[in-house]
C-alpha cells in the first residue's frame, strides 16, 4: 500500500489536530493508569520517512489524549513483528495498533491477540485472516478521482490521455485506477486512449510512454499511478512535459514534489501518514472508552499542485 515517502504536512495536520484534541478532551480525565490502558503501536519499519511521519502523528495524538504509547519497530521483518505482537499480549496492553510488515504473515499473531481479547487496529495495510477492530488506511480510490480532477483541470477538460498502471494485481494499482476511471468519466471531452502497465517503475514508464506516444501522438495528458512512473513519462516527453502534455502522479515523493516545482508535473496525490497515525490512536482511545468505532476509516489523500506545494516542502 505504500509507495512513497513524503514530508511534513503542516496545514492538514492542524485540522486533524483540532479533531483529535476535541475527542481527547473528554478522554484525558476518564482514562487513568489502570490495567489495559497502554496502546502498543507495532510499526513495520522506521527506516522510511513515511512510517516515521506515521509514528510522529500517533505519538502526538497519544500525548494529546494522555495515553501511554509503546512503539515497537519490526524493521520490516515479519518474524520480529510476530515476537513483538506476542510480547504485546502480556502486560497492560489495552489496544494494539499494527502496521503489518506483511498482511498475511501477521494474521496468526493478530488471531492470538483476538483470543486474548485485545482489540487490534490495522493502519496503512490490512490484516488478512484475522479480526480487526478497525482499519485506518489511505483512500486510494478517492485519490484516483482527485487525480482525474486535477488532470482534467490542467487540460482544460478536453483532450486525450494515457494511463500508466502500476504492478498488475496490486491493491494500490487497482484502487487508484478505479478511482481515476470514475473521476475521468465525468469529463465527456476527455478520452482515455491507452492504458498500459509500467510496473510502478521509472525506467519502464520511460519505455512504455515512448512507445505509446508513437501510437498516440496527439496525447495531451498522462496519469501515472505513482510518481516514479510520472517521472519516467516526463523523461519520455522531454520539453513537452508540462507544456503540451500535462502529467499527474500519485504519492507525493520528494522527486515528485520537485517536478511540480519545476513545472513538469501538474499534480501528485499525497498520502497523509501523520494523519494515519493520529486517527489510529484516536480510535484506540475510543475503544478503551467503550465507544463505537467504524470498521474502516479511509484517510483522505490530498492533491498537491503548485498552489499548495509550500505546505509539503519545508
Amino acid at each position: 500500500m505504500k509507495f512513497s515517502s513524503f514530508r511534513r504536512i503542516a496545514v492538514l495536520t492542524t485540522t486533524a489536530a483540532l479533531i483529535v484534541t476535541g475527542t481527547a478532551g473528554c478522554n484525558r480525565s476518564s482514562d487513568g493508569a489502570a490495567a489495559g490502558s497502554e496502546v502498543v503501536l507495532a510499526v513495520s519499519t522506521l527506516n522510511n520517512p513515511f512510517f516515521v511521519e506515521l509514528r510522529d502523528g500517533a505519538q502526538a495524538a497519544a500525548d494529546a489524549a494522555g495515553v501511554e504509547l509503546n512503539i515497537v519497530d519490526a524493521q520490516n521483518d515479519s518474524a520480529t513483528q510476530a515476537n513483538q505482537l506476542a510480547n504485546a499480549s502480556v502486560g497492560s496492553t489495552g489496544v494494539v495498533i499494527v502496521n503489518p510488515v506483511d498482511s498475511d504473515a501477521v494474521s496468526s499473531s493478530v488471531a492470538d491477540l483476538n483470543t486474548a481479547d485485545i482489540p487490534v487496529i490495522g493502519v496503512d495495510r490490512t490484516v488478512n485472516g484475522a479480526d480487526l477492530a478497525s482499519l485506518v488506511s489511505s483512500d486510494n480510490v478517492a485519490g484516483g478521482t482527485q487525480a482525474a480532477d486535477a488532470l482534467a483541470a490542467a487540460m482544460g477538460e478536453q483532450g486525450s490521455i494515457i494511463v500508466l498502471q502500476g504492478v498488475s494485481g496490486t491493491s494500490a494499482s487497482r484502487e487508484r485506477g478505479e478511482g481515476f476511471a470514475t473521476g475521468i468519466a465525468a469529463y465527456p471531452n476527455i478520452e482515455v486512449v491507452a492504458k498500459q502497465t509500467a510496473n510502478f517503475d521509472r525506467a519502464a514508464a520511460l519505455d512504455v510512454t515512448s512507445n505509446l506516444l508513437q501510437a498516440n501522438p496527439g496525447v495531451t495528458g498522462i496519469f501515472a499511478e505513482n510518481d516514479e512512473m510520472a517521472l519516467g513519462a516526463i523523461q519520455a516527453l522531454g520539453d513537452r512535459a508540462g507544456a503540451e502534455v500535462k502529467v499527474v502522479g500519485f504519492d507525493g515523493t520528494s522527486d515528485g514534489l520537485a517536478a511540480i516545482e519545476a513545472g513538469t508535473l501538474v499534480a501528485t496525490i499525497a498520502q497523509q501518514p501523520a494523519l494515519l497515525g493520529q486517527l489510529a490512536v484516536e480510535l484506540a482511545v475510543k475503544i478503551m472508552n467503550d465507544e463505537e468505532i467504524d470498521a474502516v476509516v479511509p484517510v483522505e489523500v490530498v492533491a498537491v499542485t503548485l498552489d499548495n506545494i509550500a505546505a509539503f516542502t519545508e
Partner: protein
Amino acid sequence: MTTKTPEVLHSDVHRDVHRDSQPRRFDVKRFLSNNGALVGLVVLCIALVIATPDFLTGQNLLNIGIQASTVAVMAFGVTFVIIAGGIDLSVGSVAALSAMVSGWFFVSAGLPGGAALAAGLIAGLLAGVINGLASAYGKLPSFIATLAMLSVARGLTLVISDGRPIATAPQVSFLGGSVGPVPVPIIVLVVTALIASFILNRTVIGRSMYAVGGNAEAARLSGLPVNRIIVTVFALAGLFAAVAGLLLAGRLDSAQPQAAAGYELDAIAAVVIGGASLAGGVGRISGTIVGALILVVIRNGLNLLNVTAFWQQVVIGLVIALAVGIDVLRRKSRSK
C-alpha cells in the same frame, strides 16, 4: 600442451559456432536454419507492420533500439557466462549497484564526472570478479554464487542510496542523450556488440570460453587455465552489466535504487532466444542482439496495440517459449 591450445580449440570447439563461417556461396536454407531467432524477429516485425501503422516509423525504430540497448549490453556479458557453461543471475543488481556507486561518488564524494563514471565501471567489474572467484575457486555453483550477489548488490545499492534516487554525473547522463540525430544508447549498443563479438571470436580468452563451456574437464586437461578463464568471464559480465546500469541511469538522469530489477531474466532470455545453449559451449553475440530485439519488439508492439497488462505477460511468455521451442525443434531435425 599449452602451446597447442589454439589448434585444439579450433578443431574441437568451433563445430557449432563457425559452421557457416566460410560459406562458398550463400546457402539460404543453411542461413535460415542457423538463424531461427532472426527469422522469428522478422516474422514478428512483419506482423506488427500489418497490425499497426505506428510500428514502422523512424522514431519508433529508434525507440526500439534505445530500449533494447540496456538489456542487450547486459546480455552480452551473460552470453560469455552462458557460453562458458555458467549462469549469472546478478547482472540486474550489479547494474543498479554500478550506477549507484557512480552517482554516490559524483554527488556525495564530489568526484569529477568522468572519474565517477569510471568508479561505476570498476564497481561492476569487482562484483563480477567476486562472482568469478566464488564460482571458480570457491566451487560454488554459479547459480548460487550469483544469486547471492543478486541479493548483496541490491542490498548495497539500497544502503548507499538510502532507498532514494541519486543524480548522475553529466558524463553518465550523456549516455542517455543523443549525438545529432543518433541516440547514444544505440551507439553504445553497437560499440559494445563489436567489442563483445571481437572478444568471443578473435581472442584466446573468447575461444577458451567455448572450450570451458563445452567440456570443462577436457579444457583443463588440454592445459587451459579454467579457473582464470571463469573469473575473467564473470568479470566481463560484471563490466557489461555496469555499462548497462550506467546507460539506464543516463536515460533516467538518476541512479534508481530499484533500477534493472528483474533484468537478469530478460538478459538470460535474450541469450537463450538468440540460440545459446544453457548447457554451455554454444552462443553468439549476433544471436543475443536478435534475442534482445525480440523481447523489446514484443513489448513495443503490445504497447502500440494497447494490449491489456494482464495479457501482456501471457503473450511475452508464450513468445519466449515459442522462439526457443522452434529453435530446439530445428536443431533436432537438423541432427537427424
